[in-house]
């Protein structure tokens, strides 16, 4: 065991401790001056914590990417009910899941800085639910036992449930908080309960908890029909979370009613739980099924990419454009996974991993910037606003850059990731690749058009549309955004900085364990 592995549990324990500390605070609603002051103090403490925690995650992920065999820590096994099924709590971190953890580590300080609670309106429950979500996300990305994986999968849902339910806000575009929330909740469970059955089935077959990395070994001993059912259970869980086309019914309203920071984390990191499952569970554990159902799944992904982009065109608010462009981009990530071909490491998988990382960072920035346009955090109507740039020059500049990044401008990291995915797709089907690229293009156009309508042209809006324009970004906030843009630029120009450690891990797995990432 590498000596750094002992630090892995802290990725889960730190937010857990923060959650308990916030939970011990007395209830404050922030309505009177005194309690608002206390809330602001708490917000500052939470911000400091997120920076420390983010730095820790970034450090441990980068460390893990440099260690060829990765980090792994295994706890004492617990027999489940009968003595013959042993659940070993195990955590691992290597080039495959480190991008996810790194993404979480980078997003948290950014989001909590840009969207910190200036008015002191959020009481302790805000940070309790946020930290529950955060620790679950870290747990999902780190767990190497299926029972732990499912545990964190469900607690992430609980965290999001309370975060949205307690601090979400209804608006005229998406109805009441609860109707959106329960839809999100039930949609996710429709996926996660079949996933639970698949997990139990794998455990029953193996006689122990096989863990994320042991699925392939167990699954290859099963007969085809049974394996297909288990595969389907997992696929449903991940498809809802990502979401793929047809499973996205919860998407728009949930993002609309969430608190801004929650929305940013949902899109930037929580949706990556689905991508994590596709890459680490399906592609790695069920290569045969992935190959067999690839044609259908590829078509579904391309349809999602095009459909999401077309929906972007029809939206009248920046946030809705972001939501559907997210659907479109995540479909491309899935396309990368399902077009991965029979090499030890494949362009599709590395491209998908890179895209996960890029998309997360870009979405964190875009959702945060969007929420900073008005004081209420509501996204303004495109048709009723214009010329906001006069009051928010810095915000407009970084928002436009983020939109360019999302539109895969060559030289920025998203371009490198997308091109890898499209290369991989081209080998499967040039036509699908063509359609997917057209989809990406349409989505980009819609985003730029949205920016144009809000920020450029003749000034109109706040007075008519009934919102107050927020103050511009401070120097520090802009500096943070510029640093993020620098990351995109560096990774765009030197993608091997990211791809090399990832591919090395994949190669290692292929050579060391005699198990190709894909056949």
């Amino acid at each position, binding site marked *: 065991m590498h000596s750094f592995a002992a630090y892995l549990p802290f990725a889960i324990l730190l937010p857990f401790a923060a959650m308990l500390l916030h939970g011990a605070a007395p209830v404050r609603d922030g309505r009177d001056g005194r309690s608002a002051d206390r809330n602001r103090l708490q917000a500052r403490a939470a911000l400091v914590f997120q920076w420390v925690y983010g730095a820790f995650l970034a450090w441990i992920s980068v460390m893990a990417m440099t260690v060829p065999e990765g980090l792994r820590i295994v706890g004492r096994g617990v027999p*489940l*009910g009968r003595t013959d099924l042993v659940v070993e709590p195990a955590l691992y971190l290597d080039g495959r899941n480190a991008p996810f953890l790194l993404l979480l580590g980078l997003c948290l300080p950014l989001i909590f800085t840009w969207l910190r609670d200036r008015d002191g309106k959020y009481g302790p429950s805000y940070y309790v639910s946020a930290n529950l979500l955060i620790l679950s996300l870290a747990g999902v990305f780190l767990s190497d036992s299926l029972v732990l994986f499912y*545990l964190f999968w*469900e607690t992430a849902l609980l965290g999001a449930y309370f975060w949205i339910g307690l601090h979400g806000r209804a608006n005229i575009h998406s109805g009441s908080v609860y109707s959106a929330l*329960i839809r999100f909740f039930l949609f996710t469970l429709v996926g996660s309960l079949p996933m639970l059955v698949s997990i139990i089935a794998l455990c029953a077959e193996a006689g122990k908890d096989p863990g994320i990395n042991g699925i392939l070994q167990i699954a290859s001993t099963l007969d085809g029909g049974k394996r297909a059912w288990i595969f389907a259970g997992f696929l449903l869980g991940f498809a809802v979370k990502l979401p793929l086309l047809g499973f996205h019914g919860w998407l728009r309203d949930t993002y609309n009613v969430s608190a801004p920071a929650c929305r940013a984390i949902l899109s930037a990191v929580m949706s990556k739980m689905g991508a994590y499952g596709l890459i680490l569970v399906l592609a790695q554990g069920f290569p045969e099924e992935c190959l067999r159902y690839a044609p259908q799944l590829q078509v579904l992904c391309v349809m999602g990419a095009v459909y999401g982009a077309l929906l972007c065109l029809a939206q009248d608010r920046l946030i809705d454009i972001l939501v559907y462009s997210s659907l479109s981009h995540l479909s491309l990530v899935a396309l990368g996974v399902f077009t991965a071909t029979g090499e030890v490491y494949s362009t599709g998988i590395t491209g998908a991993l890179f895209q996960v990382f890029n998309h997360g960072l870009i979405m964190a920035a875009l959702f945060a910037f969007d929420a900073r346009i008005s004081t209420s955090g509501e996204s303004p109507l495109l048709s009723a606003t214009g010329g906001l740039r006069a009051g928010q020059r810095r915000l407009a500049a970084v928002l436009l850059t983020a939109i360019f990044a999302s539109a895969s401008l060559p030289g920025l990291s998203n371009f490198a990731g997308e091109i890898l995915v499209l290369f991989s797709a081209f080998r499967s089907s040039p036509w699908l690749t063509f359609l997917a690229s057209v989809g990406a293009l349409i989505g980009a156009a819609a985003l730029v058009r949205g920016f144009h309508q809000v920020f450029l042209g003749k000034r109109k809006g706040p007075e008519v549309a009934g919102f107050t324009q927020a103050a511009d970004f401070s120097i520090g906030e802009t500096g943070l955004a510029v640093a993020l843009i620098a990351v995109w630029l560096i990774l765009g120009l030197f993608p091997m900085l990211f791809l090399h450690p990832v591919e090395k891990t994949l190669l290692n797995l292929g050579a060391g364990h005699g198990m190709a990432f894909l056949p």
Partner: protein
Amino acid sequence: MNPYVLSQAPLILGFVFLLGLASVRPSGRESLSNIIAILALCSGAVALWKFLPEGAQYFGGAIRVTSVGKILAYLCLGLSAVALLLSEDYLEKVRIQGADWRMVVLALALGMVNLCLAGDLATLFIAYELVSIPSYVLAGFAHRDPRSNEAGMKYLLLGIFSSVLFLLGLSFVYGATGEIHLLAIHDKLARAVEAGAAGDLGLAKIGVAFIIGAVFFKVAVAPLHSWLPDVYQGTNLASLAIISSPVKVAVFGMLGMLLWGAFEPLSDLWKPVLLAGAACSAVMGNLQAIVQTNLKRLVAYSAVVNAGFILLGILVNSVPVVIFYLASYGIMTLGSWAAFMAMGSRKADVDEIGDVAGLGRTQRWVALGLTIILLSYAGIPLTAGFAAKFGVVLEALKPDAFLPRGTLAVSYLSIAAGLVSFYFYFQIIRAMWLQSPPLDGPDRRGSGVRWPYAFVLTLCVVVIVSLGMFLRLPGM
């Protein structure tokens, strides 16, 4: 002296003491009678452990001590003791004479212990009645309350139907085999099945079907569950804590021991029946719960859903899994009643979901406790409910299990139908945390929670979480 008599002595003596107490000081202090009753239950468990070695038989086989039976008996006694602890304060509120009520509980405990130790058909029926009759009394105990009267009457009429069916089943089995001892019945049935003697088996099969039907009625397996929500709704919470938790454990335990033991040779008959019961419970329990707004009725439907899982556990022949399920189910149910008692005002219980609105702000710790219990019902990992369901489905999906066709589908269905249960459990969680307290609701601020409720609720939550973390019962 006969060790069996010694082992039953504490319960009987407790009963006699309480009888004396009730006649001498009809309106005496509640806590004295409660202490006597709890002591009787605890010493009953100790006596069981001390005097009855495993494998022993008494009165010519009428009583047969098995390890499973003993564990179930401990479980019933323990759950009853916790339920008695809860009643300390509550009975005064609903104006029930404590000594009388506890006397009935001790009689019921005697029935439960004997249900777990029964070695022949006669003992089985006597114990079954000794469980049933006090249950009817408990349901209708608050006789000033018309709803309690209704609950008691409904429970009595339908319960008698179940008892008759049970007795009929027992006599058919006796008629078919000519044996009264469960072990002898097993041997006869096994030989008849081996020889393919269709004539003898026909009657026995009808008998077993009747017995299963009666038990299904008693523990409310769908589609024979429609009485349960009405009875739950009308019964006071203290009585409910007994009826819904230890009694369920005892009757399910008896069903398991009968099917694994005496009627094991007829498994081709009863396995499909159990499977159908499990499927119906999963579907009907969940779907009917959606529209409920009454808290007790919701818990009643969740009892139906859980009954389905327990049947699956019995079906897959896994004793530890079933005992684990029964233990966690009993604890969860007791915990939810403790939370409901703690949430009630001095005058009234919580009744509708709306009554618990905003409790996250006024009674944060009680709300947190109930939330953990509801998450356990729903099956979120790290809770006993998850571990229990996981164990049952795991056994059902084992590749080498000898199970009827469709077991896989029914396990899948039970989990998938759980989606609905998430919806209704989260209705309560939503009311507690995401809604504001009603303006005209009772003012709970500063009233505090009485210690028995707080103690039992904490105990249940700790047990639920530790069962969920360590995933097995101590000593198993």
